[in-house]
């Protein structure tokens, strides 16, 4: 299995723990170099956030477990970059249209 370099997750989480606590808990995981947590939507009980995790060998299951332990739910895995080098998404003709 090749190593995961980047993970982009769509997560629904309660207001508590705060986004700072969630980002820093994921950032503390082994082989994670950096985390970006962006807030998209705030509801009465929940928040919708996009979490981008980058590292040399991101452990997907550990990231998932950490989010679930903090009360969050991963709605979808929006982007995965794995392998020896980072490959960005290419724009296709369909995207341009």
């Amino acid at each position: 299995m090749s190593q995961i370099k980047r993970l982009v997750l769509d997560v629904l989480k309660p207001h508590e723990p705060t986004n700072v606590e969630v980002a820093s808990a994921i950032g503390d995981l082994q082989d994670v170099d950096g985390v970006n947590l962006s807030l998209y939507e705030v509801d009465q009980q929940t928040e919708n956030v996009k979490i981008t995790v980058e590292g040399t060998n991101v452990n997907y299951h550990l990231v998932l477990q950490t989010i679930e332990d903090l009360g969050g739910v991963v709605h979808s895995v929006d982007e995965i970059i794995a392998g020896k080098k980072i490959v960005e998404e290419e724009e296709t003709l369909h995207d341009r249209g």
Partner: protein
Amino acid sequence: MSFNVEEGRYIILGSVDGLLATLGIVIGVSVVSATTSIVISAGLGGAIALALTNGIGSYLAESTIEHGKRIKTEKSLLRKLSNTYIETLSRKRIVKDSLTHGGASFFASLIPLAPWLLGVGSVFASVALSLIALVVLGVYAGNISKQNYVMSVAKMVGLGMLIVVTEQLLKFFHLT
């Protein structure tokens, strides 16, 4: 242990409860018997009972509220939150609030009892110490609510005076 606004609520609730209820006991009992040991026994009995009822009361109330909040969040998230950081946080908060409420109540109860415990045995000293404690509590409450300190202190001291006056009236009408 750091205290936030939530704990501030229980510090004020518990302290006012402990201070005024015990002051009432001290004034009431000292009318019947001026014996120091009886005043101390009655006061300490009241202080312990208050601390336990406040602590347990808070535990039960907070458990109910926290459980209700968790169920609401679980419905929104479409998942159970048992064995998560949220549950641990919620349990810690319940215990902290209960200890704060019960503890504040007990320690505040010792203020009107202090002159008797130190062998001074004077109702006047109990009232004076309690009013000083209410002034401190008023400043603390003013600081939390970001309101006028004078108004906050006046409310606290006014409440204390109300207890003293009520007790004196009861004494006057031979009801204690």
